[in-house]
């Protein structure tokens, strides 16, 4: 990865962080789009698994700082998701939009499930509903947004495609 590509990825990631803290509260949906997960996945597939895990850890920690009761849960979930995404990408993934959508969907759902298990902040039934209903819906929206972001990144920022 050359420096121009690295800069483009960094800018894209920062834009996604800003979107996460502006668009998400503004929409206020019950199933929010997770721009942080999109950002971590977008970078993870382009860096080594260790770097992806560390990036996920830092991003999750930033996210957790706003909810001190579950500090560490988001960091742990994001580390695992980042590492796995990077490792899977290196092993099997091709450059396909549908596969990317599925990738974002699974990434977000996995993040939510790990977060729910580690945080353990609600009654079991509520956690089950969250993990089985709301999380997949949120993951679907995140997947749609992720594909859109990926295409926009390729057309606008990625030096290889621009």
């Amino acid at each position: 990865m050359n420096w121009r590509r690295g800069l483009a990825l960094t800018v894209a990631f920062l834009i996604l962080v800003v979107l996460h803290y502006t668009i998400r509260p503004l929409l206020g949906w019950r199933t929010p789009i997770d721009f942080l997960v999109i950002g971590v996945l977008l970078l993870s597939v382009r860096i080594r698994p260790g770097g992806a895990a560390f990036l996920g850890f830092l991003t999750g920690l930033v996210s957790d700082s706003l909810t001190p009761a579950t500090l560490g849960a988001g960091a742990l979930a994001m580390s695992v998701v980042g590492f796995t995404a990077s490792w899977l990408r290196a092993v099997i993934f091709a450059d396909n939009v549908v596969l990317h959508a599925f990738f974002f969907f699974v990434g977000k759902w996995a993040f939510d499930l790990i977060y729910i298990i580690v945080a353990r902040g609600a009654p079991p039934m509520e956690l089950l509903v969250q993990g089985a209903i709301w999380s997949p819906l949120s993951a679907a929206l995140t997947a749609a947004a992720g594909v859109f972001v990926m295409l926009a990144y390729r057309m606008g920022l990625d030096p290889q495609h621009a």
Partner: protein
Amino acid sequence: MARAVRASSRADTVVLVACVVTSGLFTILPSVARDQVAGVLRRTVVQPVLALQRTAERGRNAIVERETLTRRLDSLTLGTARLTDLELENERLRRMVGLGAAMRTGFVVAEVVHTQSLGDEHTVTLTAGANSGVTPRSIVVAPDGVVGMVTTVDPTSSLAILWTHPDFRVSAQSVGSNVLGIVRPHAGAEGERYLLELTGVAFRDSLNPGTLIVSSGLGGRYPTGIPVGTVIGEIKSSEGWARTYVVRPAVKPQDVTTVMIVQPERLGVGVASLWPKPVDTVRRVVSDSALAADRARRAAAVAKADSLVNARLQVRDTPPTTIIPRRPP
């Protein structure tokens, strides 16, 4: 090469394990320590995104509350528009209650139903009838004065003519000078339709504008002392031996919502003391006219002073003129 890849993969795993262990440690920290760590992050690296989030939340709240605020504003506007009417009605009802308390017995309170049918605008329906003790030809009054008379009585309702009805008559007198006459509706043009006129005033008597006219008690139907209206001015009449005055009625028909029907047995006791004393009324009229005169004098003085100042300013602003000698022819 293979060794390098293995070493790299091992390093990635070590980083992952380190991240997971650190995160796990954070989750099991005491809440105080967790708050401290989160607080440090919020005050440093997270502060910009926190500010962004706060702004976004505020924006969302503004969007969500806009509709509620608009609805509330509409309700307030509507409420404000109705407030004046309610204040007037409240004032009328208070006076009605005061009149009822003073009268004590011998009256029936009724609401007025304006039928508004064409050609029948001088008649109203009252929500009290024979069951409540209403009898035909009972007089109908309001806190301001005479309203009319009951003509037809049903068990639960009754019909009454207003003072605007062509058949309405009441024997009246002026307060203070005791000038007698008969009050009847004024048959004027559209604008003067809701006025009364005091007819049959002896030619030797004259009344000043603002004089209060009350019922005189002659004829036995309307007892002495119920306000009928105030004199506006004299009009020319064909009767050379008597004067006729236009009277502004004490009660406006469109404002009447609640009235009192005075029962015949109450008329024997007298009702003159229930309304404001004529002396007070005369004094109020006099003081009102004095105030108006004073206000007019003051306005005239101000206008005069203004014109003087303007004249001086004009003189100062005008450039000096030079007289050009006329050319010889």
